[in-house]
């Protein structure tokens, strides 16, 4: 799944999003609440918070390589 705001885009690999442990971890680490764990345990992106991303990389560090991508849309989609 991918959600693009004005400045930032967030992409979670569809398979990774089903990982309930990862979903819980993403919700826990993000300081600006971009990730939430849905009732069924899967990861969701909170669209209204995406542009609040502070580029801290905590979500990237908490997930396996390639599971989550943070894109800087103001830099032609450059990956964080």
């Amino acid at each position: 799944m991918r959600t693009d705001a004005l400045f930032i885009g967030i992409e979670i690999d569809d398979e990774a999003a089903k990982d309930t442990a990862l979903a819980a971890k993403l919700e826990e680490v993000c300081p600006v609440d971009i990730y939430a764990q849905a009732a069924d345990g899967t990861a969701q992106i909170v669209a209204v918070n995406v542009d609040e991303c502070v580029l801290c990389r905590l979500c990237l560090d908490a997930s396996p390589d390639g599971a989550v991508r943070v894109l800087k849309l103001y830099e032609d989609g450059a990956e964080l």
Partner: protein
Amino acid sequence: MRFYEYEAREIVKRAGIPVTDYGFTADAGEAGQIAERIGGSTVIKSQVLTGGRMKAGGVKFADTPGEAEAHAADILKLEINGHAARGVLVDPRAQVKQEYYAGVVWDGTAKKPLILFSDMGGIDIEQVAEEHPDHVGRAHVPTLLPVSDFHAKQAIAGAGVTGRQMQRLIPIVSRLAQLFQTDDMTLAEINPLAELEDGSFVALDAHMEMEKEAEGRQRELLRALGIADDEERDGHEPSTFESAVSAIDAADHRGVIQGKDTGFHGDLGLVIGAGGGSLTLTDAVQSVGGSPANYSEIGGNPSVAKACGLAKAVLQKDGVEKIAVMMSIVSNTRVDIVARGVIKACIELGKDPAETISVFRIPGAWEEEGFKILRRYGVEHFDRSVSMHEAAQRAVDKIQGTTAP
């Protein structure tokens, strides 16, 4: 925190400065009784936190208690500059020989209180200082040592007052300087300080403002004045803009924003802040001929939503076509986050950021990332090599059309 005149008089009285035998009431009948107690002619003055009382009919003279009651009834119904009267002050009509001015203000440059004294009271001290500078005496007061009569004497002598008048004035001015310090005032003013026909001196009017942050420490004084712990005291009702900015700030704990537009009528919206930057930048805009639409403060690392909210509130003010986003060098407030916020505000209001943001001058944390965003949207931006004054000049030139867009 600003005080009503009747409260300011009480503060002055508590400091040992002579005042007239005045009375305060919110009841017209009681105003008549106070006038009867005082005896003779009285002055009935509306108690509002705004100027222009005399012009608006908020100050009237009465020769009898009945007349005082009637005037009080009229004044209590009167709204002055949108302010309803808290009550009326009934004051004896003093036989004045000469009016003086005594005030203590904070001198931000010297970082010390400054006593101002003039033998030309009853008019604004600013006007006296401009038209009769030789009639204004000044003396700084130390902040670590106790206030001495010497400082009062220095200020009084500076206005050319000597002899018996000086001797009588010294304790009054000295006590005013002491109360400025002990009561955490930002302004303590007696104007006029009247010399009566019998040679005595009395405070006929007083204006006091207390440092807002000191309210907790001064709770005992405030309670003694009858001011409730939860009473909010502003010199004016918040404007739509001010209320909107306060609501945005209260809704999000991240960072801090403030906005004021009372007294501003310009066309250049200001999103400004950082370590005294707001005051410097407002002055800078005015000094180069610009006309700010507002004052604001943004800092403490606000969220994108908060920066966006402030910029939107500024842009939605009547007559604002462009905003200038400027700060001193920031350490914790991120340049990229503010850049996102102000650009988002433009876009959500259907405006072109490149046209709407006249300049963006915030050097500091994450500036390279911020500048990438600004470049992307074509917003003119500066780093620390451009001073705040130069940035203000550029913003004003753009809004006045004296330079290429």
